[in-house]
């Protein structure tokens, strides 16, 4: 039984750590794939906090929110990867600086 063995602190620690790693990756890397995975990691840590609170309060609402979040994450992943593919097709690079030039591709055509 989880209530006798574990306290919420390790879970919060894990969520904080995951969020921090995601934020560090978002700030420090330029490879767009790594940036994308960092965003996913931050979203997952928010999921984890929601599940822990849902478990603490015995309320399924938090879990339902996480379920909807997972759907949003899937949508975000599809969009982000499509944009990366578009960038690679037009510039042959995954540098995040080139991402800003995506809006010019329409005008050049």
């Amino acid at each position, binding site marked *: 039984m989880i209530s006798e063995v574990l306290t919420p602190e390790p879970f919060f620690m894990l969520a904080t750590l995951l969020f921090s790693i995601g934020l560090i990756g978002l700030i420090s890397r330029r490879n767009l794939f790594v940036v994308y995975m960092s965003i996913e990691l931050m979203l997952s840590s928010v999921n984890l906090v929601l599940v822990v609170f849902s*478990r603490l309060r015995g309320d399924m609402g938090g879990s*339902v929110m996480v379920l909807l979040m997972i759907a949003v*994450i899937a949508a975000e992943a*599809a969009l982000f990867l499509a*944009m990366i*593919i578009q960038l690679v097709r037009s510039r042959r690079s995954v540098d995040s600086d080139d991402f800003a030039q995506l809006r010019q591709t329409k005008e050049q055509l």
Partner: protein
Amino acid sequence: MLWSKQSILSAFGFLIAMLAMAGVFALLENSFLFLAQIMVSVGAVVVLSLMVIITVNMKDEDLPDEPKKLRWILFSAILVAPFSFLMYRALTHMHQSFGVSQEGYGTLKSMGGELFSHWVLPFEIASVLLLAAMVAAIVIARKEPN
């Protein structure tokens, strides 16, 4: 995950993180979310990103040049540290321990009951959002007609 230059190694780290997250959900007695995480995050999102990375197949010289990567990571870690400490303190101040879980917590039945009674509108919005994202992804990723 942050370290490696090759994106595929980062993707494997991401896969491990998502699997571990599913394990944590199982530890929190939330069996349905465990399954949803395995199916959606691991089965769809990670596999999709792996396939994109393999398809794109960037050469080493095409990858962005990051000569000061280690310094950047250290710098941003120092930048983020106070914030994460604050977040940890704020989160842990709210509750002290887990209560005994109620009967039927985390099962498919209670989840579905909650989802289709109180959360119907967000559920519908999520379905519309998924449809819009699907259409948008196809539009963005298709070849431009010349």
